[in-house]
Structure formats: structure tokens, C-alpha cells
């Protein structure tokens, strides 16, 4: 059995890791293609190390461009590789441009494809990720879902029952696998007290200078009570400079590796974010999470977990002040560290 995994951006790598490990344990033949859709990825390499993955076999170096140009480059460069490698499955992850491009290539070549983290929807088609998700799910031959509500969404979209496989959350596999190593790290960015950790990168938050300024104001207010640590996406730092937005009192640092970030979040009083993955990671760590978006594609983190959707940034300071860490973090169904094994079983790797 030959699997060709396609990843394109950092958030894909913690999803790949448990699937890769489980398939390696069953001696599957595996090829990892990194499309290189992030230009800032000195960190990508450290993510592979932190997650105990070998480096990617093939790097397509597509670089950062508009959505159309980036997707186009991935299509062009990936197609001959899929033709040459003859995989039994093309396996794609999450919701980046590489996810969409790879399933499209596979579908046109008649090669079966599997989407890990299928059935997530924010309901907001203004998010490019939402477009990537709905196309990946429509074209992939097997859909591995992280939660039962994702199964339900796919059924409503008319996907046949035999395409949908409930696998559970692969990202949580990676958290549980890496947590012991993260907890013995010497923290570089933590002060004496539990800090508030911030990540922001979505266009809806960082491309509108007024929205970004309102968020900055809220973060500055939070920093009056506690240290605020903000590992900032280069895109966000650029927008801050361009918009003349400053955050006095907020510790803005470069993006962190996987283990360092996990250690920082694990020790945090609360997290303020617009990332998808952090909403899930904070739930299993019992850390309160404030998601600054209008929607979430991961409602289980609100229903069962520590996540709160905050539409108005001015509500953040009071929310963070009142937040308490959970002593016994909840574990939604399938968030048990074995999702990668269920994916590999669902692919028929024996």
C-alpha cells in the first residue's frame, strides 16, 4: 500500500504526523510532498522535527502568491508527481490551497483521495479555507471526520454513507503525543505568572486596519493585568506596520515551533486566537479560549470545551479576567490519541 501525503502549510503537519506514524507502524510505503505554499517556513522544518517526522520527500517550493496563482502552481507541479508515483491514496489534510489542489489533481487522474479533517464548516464562504474545504470534501473518495457533527454536515450535503468515516481528531493525537516532551522544555517566553497567549492571522482580522486597531486596544487592556505573549504571523506583523497599529505592553515575538508553542499554551491563563487548531488544543489542555471570529467550524469546542466566540473585541478584557482554567479538561468523542490509527485502518492499510 502506497500513500502519498500532501501538506502545504504548518497547520497541516500536526495532522499528518499521527497518520504517518500509524501507517509506518504497519509498514506502508509513504511519500510526503510539501508544496511549500508558506514562504516563511524556516519553521516548517522544525515542525517536522518536533513531531518526529522525517523531512518531506519532495518539496514543490510553490511559494506565496495570490490564491489563484498558488493553487495553479500546486496543480501543475503536483500532477506529474502523482502520475509518476502511482499511489493507492493521495491523502490531504485540513483546508489550505494545497488540500484543494491535490484532491483536484487526484480526481482528474482517477487516483483515490482521502481528506483528513473532513466535514468542517464555518458557514462563511468569505473565508478562502471554507472554499477549500467544500471542494476537498466533494471530490475526495474518503472523508475522515473529527467529530459526529461533521458526519452530519456531510450527510446533509448528500455525501454517501460509505464515503464518511468517523476518525476523531488527529491534531489531538499530536498534542497528546508531544505533551510530555513540551512540559520539560525550558520556556523562553513565559514570565513568572500564567500569561495570555495571542495568535491572529485571518484576513478578516488583520487586513482591516480598524478591526486590527480594535483588537490591539483590547490586547493592551488585557496586558494591564497579565503578561500578553503574541507570537505573530509575519503577515500580521506586516499588517500592523502598514496600518500603524502598535501594542504597547504586549510581548510580540516571532512564530514558535510546535513544542514551544504547545508549552506556552499549556501554561497559559487563556488564549485569544482566530486559528482553528488552537480552539481544539485549548479544549484538551483545559485552557480558556477566546475566538475572535464571527463563526467557528469546530462547534464541539464551544459545546463541550473551553472555547467562547467573541465577536466584539471590547468584550475580551472582562472575559479574560473572569476566565478559569479547567482542572479536568473535557475529551470530546474521538479525541483520544488514536485518530491516526483509525484513519490508517479506514484506508485499508494492513
Amino acid at each position, binding site marked *: 500500500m502506497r500513500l502519498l501525503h500532501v501538506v502545504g502549510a504548518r497547520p497541516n503537519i500536526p495532522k499528518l504526523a499521527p497518520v504517518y506514524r500509524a501507517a509506518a507502524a504497519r509498514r506502508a510505503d509513504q511519500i510526503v510532498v510539501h508544496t511549500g505554499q508558506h514562504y516563511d517556513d524556516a519553521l516548517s522544518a522544525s515542525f517536522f522535527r518536533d513531531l518526529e517526522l522525517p523531512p518531506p520527500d519532495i518539496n514543490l517550493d510553490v511559494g506565496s502568491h495570490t*490564491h*489563484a*496563482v498558488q493553487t*495553479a502552481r500546486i*496543480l501543475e507541479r503536483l500532477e506529474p508527481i502523482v502520475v509518476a508515483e502511482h499511489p493507492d491514496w493521495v491523502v490531504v489534510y485540513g483546508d489550505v490551497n494545497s488540500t484543494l489542489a491535490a484532491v*483536484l489533481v487526484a480526481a482528474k487522474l482517477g487516483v483515490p483521495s482521502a481528506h483528513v479533517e473532513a466535514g468542517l464548516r464555518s458557514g462563511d464562504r468569505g473565508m478562502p479555507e471554507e472554499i477549500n474545504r*467544500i471542494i476537498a470534501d466533494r471530490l475526495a473518495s474518503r472523508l475522515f471526520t473529527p467529530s459526529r457533527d461533521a458526519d452530519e454536515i456531510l450527510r446533509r450535503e448528500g455525501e454517501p454513507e460509505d464515503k464518511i468515516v468517523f476518525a476523531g481528531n488527529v491534531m489531538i493525537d499530536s498534542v497528546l503525543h508531544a505533551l510530555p516532551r513540551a512540559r520539560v522544555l525550558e520556556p523562553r517566553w513565559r514570565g513568572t505568572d500564567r500569561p495570555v497567549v495571542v495568535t491572529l492571522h485571518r484576513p478578516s482580522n488583520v487586513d482591516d486596519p480598524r478591526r486590527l486597531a480594535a483588537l490591539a486596544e483590547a490586547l493592551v487592556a488585557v496586558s494591564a493585568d497579565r503578561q500578553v505573549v503574541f507570537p505573530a504571523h509575519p503577515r500580521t506583523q506586516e499588517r500592523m506596520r502598514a496600518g500603524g497599529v502598535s501594542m504597547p505592553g504586549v510581548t510580540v515575538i516571532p512564530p514558535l515551533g510546535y513544542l514551544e508553542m504547545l508549552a506556552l499554551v499549556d501554561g497559559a491563563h487563556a488564549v485569544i486566537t482566530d486559528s482553528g487548531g488552537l480552539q481544539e488544543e485549548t479544549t484538551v489542555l483545559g485552557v480558556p479560549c477566546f475566538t475572535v471570529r464571527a463563526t467557528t467550524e469546530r462547534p464541539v469546542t464551544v459545546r463541550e470545551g473551553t472555547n467562547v466566540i467573541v465577536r466584539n473585541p471590547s468584550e475580551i478584557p472582562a472575559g479574560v479576567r473572569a476566565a478559569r482554567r479547567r482542572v479536568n479538561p473535557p475529551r470530546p468523542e474521538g479525541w483520544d490519541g488514536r485518530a491516526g490509527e483509525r484513519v490508517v485502518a479506514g484506508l485499508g492499510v494492513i
Partner: protein
Amino acid sequence: MKILHVVGARPNFPKLAPVYRAARVAGLDQIVMHTGQHYDDAMSDAFFRDLGIRPPDVNLGVGSGTHGQQTARIMERIEPELVKHQPDWVVVYGDVNSTAAAALVAVKLGQRVAHVEAGVRSNDRSMPEEINRIVVDRLADLLLTPSRTADATLRAEGEPASEIAFVGNVMVDALLFAVERARVTGARKRVGVENGKAVVVTLHRPANVDNLLRLEGIMRALRVVAADRPVLFPVHPRTRTRLDAAGIDAGKVKLMEPVGYLEMLDLMDAAHAVVTDSGGLQVESAALGVPCLTVRDTTEWPETVTCGANRLVFDPVGLPAAVASVRRLAQAPRPEGWDGMAAVRVVDCLRTR
């Protein structure tokens, strides 16, 4: 209101033409963008004149390539054009690579996309067109369907009823607009066929022409048919390459250069039957009341079968008997929406949403 039409290959033009004319009557601003994914010399000014439209305003010249390469080039070249023109609607047609690629780029730019001929499915994902259809229908904001079956298909795929609008078949609009002029082209006389005698053939699908055993089987069947009656076969360049490479004998089958839109209509109109693997010809022959034998195991136009004009003959061995048994329909069938007004309904939908 500004409409940007995206077309990419020859089968798109008879779908574009009635919509373009209806939008012109409605006084809308229009830009026709041809991606150039399929270029052939027959697509001259005369081709556009036959269809009653002007030549495309922009040609992106993407040319041919693998599906990945071609889709990639369309995406790269169309993005700056969509940004520049900022249309109120991007209108895409049918199921070619340009259809899917343009929809993908437009939706990511937050532009509204309307798909003409939405909800059409063969349910065969090994057809590249089926992948394009699935992608564009998932993305488009307005799904303009040719049949009630297509509406039901889209609803079963979870598309909201508010995005689905039944408009009817725009290809039939184009045909009804052109058929009288087709009958005075003299094409049937030039080829020398008596009315109601000849069989007109087209083949281009990979499933039929890339598989040599299958192509040989179909040609053997056509040679048998040609023993009894004239068989006219305007050969797609792709099919020509395959026939030449394999050295397949055509026998009495008359291999011809591809013909223009009007000439083709006239040849079909004069025919005893049509043998094809094209989607468009199934519709056109049904609309003319000429029996169609489709050499495939699926069809995306089930209404052509239920109205009695079309039959699927997957095994070419069955072709000679099928050709001998079919009769021209006494009256050309008119399924719902085959009334020549589909494009008017398309333009109404674009204006009111």
C-alpha cells in the same frame, strides 16, 4: 449591470450565444472572455456569425496541456482579468476546465458566479467533465438548470433551493435560433446525402477513442452500417490522431473534416440517425426529432432518453441493428424548458438577484 462570460472550448459557444443575445436585448454590459483552452481554425468569424454573436473580447490563449497544466494556466491568467473588470456576475457554461477554474478564482475573489447548465450529471467520475461539473456547482452562487432532474440532483447534493433556478436548455435556444438558416446552408446537398438516409457520427471521448480495442470495435460496427447506408463522420482532431496511429480501416465510412455549427445542424437534420458520444449532440438530435444512439454507458441528458429520441448503445456490436430499427420521430419532442426562451430566463435571474 456588468456580466463577464467565460468560455473555453467550442461546445461552450452555442450555450453562450443565446445568453449573450438576451443580455444584449436587456441592455447589460458584457465582456466575453475566451480562455483559449481549445483553439481551432473552424472557430473563425464565420463561426461566431453563425451563432449571432461577436467574437470574444479577450482571449487568454492558454492552449492545450494536461488537466493540471491547463486548469493552472486558466486560473493564473483569469485572476487579474476578474480583478480588473469587477463584474457583477461571472457567468460560466457547461463542464470544461475553464468552467471549474473560472468559478474557483471568482469565488475566492468574492465575485458572484452563475453556472449555466447546472446539475447535469453522468454519475461517472472517471469523466473529467463530471469533476468540473461537481466543482462548479459546489461553488456557484446561482445554479441555472436545464431540467427538473437537474434541480433534484442539486437538492440531493445539499444545495439550497434559493440558489437553484430552472431555466431550461440554452442549447435548444441556440438550435431553434439557427435551424432555419442551417437548412439553407446546402450542406446536405454538398455532401450528397438523401434526406432521412445517412448516419452522422461523432466520437471524441477518451473512453472511446483512447482505448484502441474499443475504437476498433466501434469502427467495425460503423463499417457494417456503411454497407447499407451512407455514414458521415466529421472527425475530431483528437480522434483523427488515434485512427491514424492505429491504422484503423474506415471502409465505406466517409471521414470528413470537422464542420461548422450550421452545417452540422443541417447534416443532422437530414440524417436517419446520429451516433455520438457527445453531450450536446444528444440534445440537438432530440430537439430535431432525429434518433440518437449514444455509444456510452451513461448519459447526463436522461430527458433525451425518456422522450424517446436517444438510446444508450454501449456495446458497439449492437449498433448496426439499432441503426436499422430506429425511426425518425413524427414530431420533435419538447421536454419542459426546450422552448427557445431559456436564455431570457437566465438573464431575468441575473438581473433580479
